[in-house]
Each structure stands twice: as structure tokens, then as C-alpha cells.
């Protein structure tokens, strides 16, 4: 299984049956494929669908039916369509249970940068800020380091911040962190990852969550 799929599978373990979930582009999109048995979630997409289904087979695409990434989708039974103001009212109003997002960076207070790159023209934000601000719970799924091996979890953001709201969970291929008002809490690390390696590859300080083992252990479904 690819590393990205492993991260997606870990994130899927944190979803509860009945959750309304918004999935970002990239790793988050993969989460839908790894839902634990007995867990049905309802996928919301900010362009105006509740109840997104699997990708259609080639040739079966409907040009009026896309997700927020503008990719063709299907809908499940009981799905509904609504306009953009209504869709963002759902997001901003706190009606989305979980958003799963990719990031450029997370800081040590659990705040995210995922919309703009310094020095480049800032011409796109989409729903990133609304989702971070309004979702009841935000899960970040990300590779632990960049392609160049630099930490994505950093003391201070190098990229423009997306929201002052701290995310609830950060899930990488190496570890899972929760956050509290003081910062990051290591909940678990992957089997083959030592604490030393984790400290080295994490640009921010973190504490180990009390009562949690911090090596070689994954949280179970709904463990939060």
C-alpha cells in the first residue's frame, strides 16, 4: 500500500458512522476508499452536493455533476443539491462534522497554511478558509516531510496562514498528533518510527499525550 493510502486509511479510522464529511483534494480524497465496516459517512462538497458517491465509470460522466475539485462524481441515494450560499452556510454554520484537508504546513499551535505561496500572486483561495473556520472537526492528512525532506510541521509558518483556528488532528505516515491550547500532542507513531526520528523530522515541539503509548501503535476507529 502506498504511503498516501496508509495516511488515508489512518484518517478513515477517525470517522464515525453518520458523519457528514468534506474531503479536500489529494490524500483526503482517498479516505472514502478506506471506511471501516459499519461506518457510513455522507460526503459534502462545497460546490453544492451532500451525498457524493464514487467516481463514475469512464464514459458515464455527467457534465453537471462534479465535486469541488471539478472532477466527475456520482451521488448516493438520499443525496441533495443546493446553491453556493447554502453550501457555505452549512460549512460556516458548523454543520459539517469533519473536514479532512491537505496542507503546505502546520505550525506548532496546530494552525494551517494551505492556500498561498509567498512571493507568488495570490489568486486562489476557494473554500479552504471556510472549511477550516467552520467544520466541527478538522483533520489534516499530510506527508510528514516535503519531497526535499523538510518538515511540514513547523514552529512558525513560512506560508500565509489559512485560519487562526487550530486543527484537531494531524495525520502523517509517521505519526498522529492531537492539539490543545498549548500545542501538539503525539497520540501515536508508526511501528518503524523511533522517537528520535520523529523529533528530527518534526519542525515543532510536541508533547506526548498522557496515557498514550507513542510508538508502534495506531488508534482504533472512533478512538478520539
Amino acid at each position, binding site marked *: 500500500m502506498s504511503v498516501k493510502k496508509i495516511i488515508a486509511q489512518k484518517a478513515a479510522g477517525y470517522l464515525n458512522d453518520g458523519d457528514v464529511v468534506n474531503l479536500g483534494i489529494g490524500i483526503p480524497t482517498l479516505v472514502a476508499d478506506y471506511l471501516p465496516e459499519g461506518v457510513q459517512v455522507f460526503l459534502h462538497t462545497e460546490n453544492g452536493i451532500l451525498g457524493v458517491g464514487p467516481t463514475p465509470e469512464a464514459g458515464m460522466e455527467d457534465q453537471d455533476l462534479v465535486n469541488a475539485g471539478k472532477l466527475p462524481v456520482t451521488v448516493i441515494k438520499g443525496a441533495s443539491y443546493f*446553491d453556493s*450560499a447554502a453550501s457555505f452556510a452549512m460549512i460556516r454554520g458548523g454543520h459539517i462534522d469533519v473536514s479532512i484537508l491537505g496542507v503546505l504546513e502546520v505550525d506548532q499551535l496546530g494552525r494551517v497554511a494551505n492556500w498561498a505561496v509567498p512571493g507568488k500572486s495570490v489568486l486562489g483561495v476557494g*473554500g479552504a478558509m471556510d472549511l477550516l473556520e467552520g467544520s466541527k472537526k478538522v483533520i489534516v492528512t499530510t506527508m510528514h516531510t516535503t519531497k526535499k525532506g523538510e518538515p511540514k510541521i513547523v514552529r512558525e509558518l513560512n506560508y500565509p496562514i489559512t485560519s487562526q483556528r487550530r486543527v484537531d488532528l494531524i495525520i502523517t505516515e509517521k505519526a498522529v498528533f492531537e492539539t490543545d491550547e498549548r500545542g501538539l500532542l503525539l497520540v501515536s507513531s508508526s511501528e518503524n518510527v523511533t522517537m528520535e526520528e520523529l523529533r528530527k523530522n518534526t519542525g515543532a515541539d510536541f508533547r506526548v499525550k498522557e496515557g498514550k503509548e507513542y510508538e508502534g501503535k495506531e488508534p482504533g476507529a472512533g478512538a478520539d
Partner: protein
Amino acid sequence: MRKLITPEMAMTFIKSGSRIMVGGFGLVGCPLTLVRALSETGIGDLEIISNNLGEPGKGLGVLVREKKVKKGIGSYFTSNPDVTAAYQAGELEIELLPQGTLSEAIRAGGAGIAAFYTPVGAGTKIAAGREERTFADKRHVLQEALKADAAFIKASHCDELGNLVYSKSARNFNPIMATAADLVIAEVDELVEAGEIPPEDIVTPHLFVDYIVLKGERGK
């Protein structure tokens, strides 16, 4: 049908320098016949309110290439490299809003609400210099309503009074833009008789719609 006109006739109501809302999320739900008719006129210097400015050479992207857009107000222009190029060349002004703030500002424009406070964007670069206020210990940003001279919207079908329904996720910005402009022109796939759309299912009541244009129609 009294509201039915040709795309060419619709363009006689539009002037250079106008502010126009255009529905759609990318090309989905975008009134492409109206946009093409506009691109075939000499009308320019436009302010366009739309989530995106199309794709290179497609939809609103045509107007960008033809340098007919003076300013874009929306949430996601990154998907069209022509927009980035025009912006960097200083030929195109951009006002970027979070997508929810954009859609809420359009709804407010149609609903007679002058301005509102949203928590989204507070404490970020996008809200730099904006008026802030705290409600329930949370920072909020003041956003004024958006209105336009005209709105081009796309619906799936329309009855003879101008009541509209939309297809699937092609609904997106169309119903709110239908409320927020002085002149609203709807492009539709199909016309039906009054009474054929159940009253509970009408999404945009006819009082919002000034004119109707059939999709794909040209040159009458």
C-alpha cells in the same frame, strides 16, 4: 414567451464598463451561450463577479484572452494561467474572497442586506486592512454586499413566466446571482409551460428573471 429573446438582443442591454455576475463553478453551470455572445460584441472594460474566470480560451477565459475584463471578483482564479499572466502584466485587477464570503456577499446583495460579519478570513492575509469586530470572543470581518448591473445565469429549464430549476451541481452560484443584479438574463436548456414545474420545486421564482435565452441559440 414574453421574456424570451436572442443572445444578440440580450447583449444590447450590456454596456462597456458594466459589472456582470456570471454563474458557474468552472464551466459547470456557466451560461456559455451568453458568454460567447458577449465575446462577439465590442463590449469591454468589464468587471466580472464569478467564482473563476473560466479556463484558457473557454467560457469566461475567452473574455480574459480578449482583454475585455478589467477586474475579476471571485475566489479561485488559479486554474486559469491566462488570469495569472494578465494579473502579473498589470492588465487585470483581482479581488479575492473566500468562496463562502463571495457567495454570502452575493446573497446579501440580492436580499437588501448592506453588510455582514463573518469569521472566515479573520487574522489572515486575505482580510488585511479589513474592518474587524469581535462577537462571542471570536474575530469577525465586515463584508459588504455585492451587486451587479447584470447577471448571466444558467438554468436547466424555465417555464413561460421565467421560473427556473437547475440541474444537479450546475446550480452553484446561479440562484444567488439571479437575485443580485439590476438585469437578470437566464440561459436555459429547455422551456416548459407555466404549471409544469411544481410550485414546491421552483428554485428561482420568476420575479428575479428579466429575460430568457435558449442555450446554443445564435444569430436570430
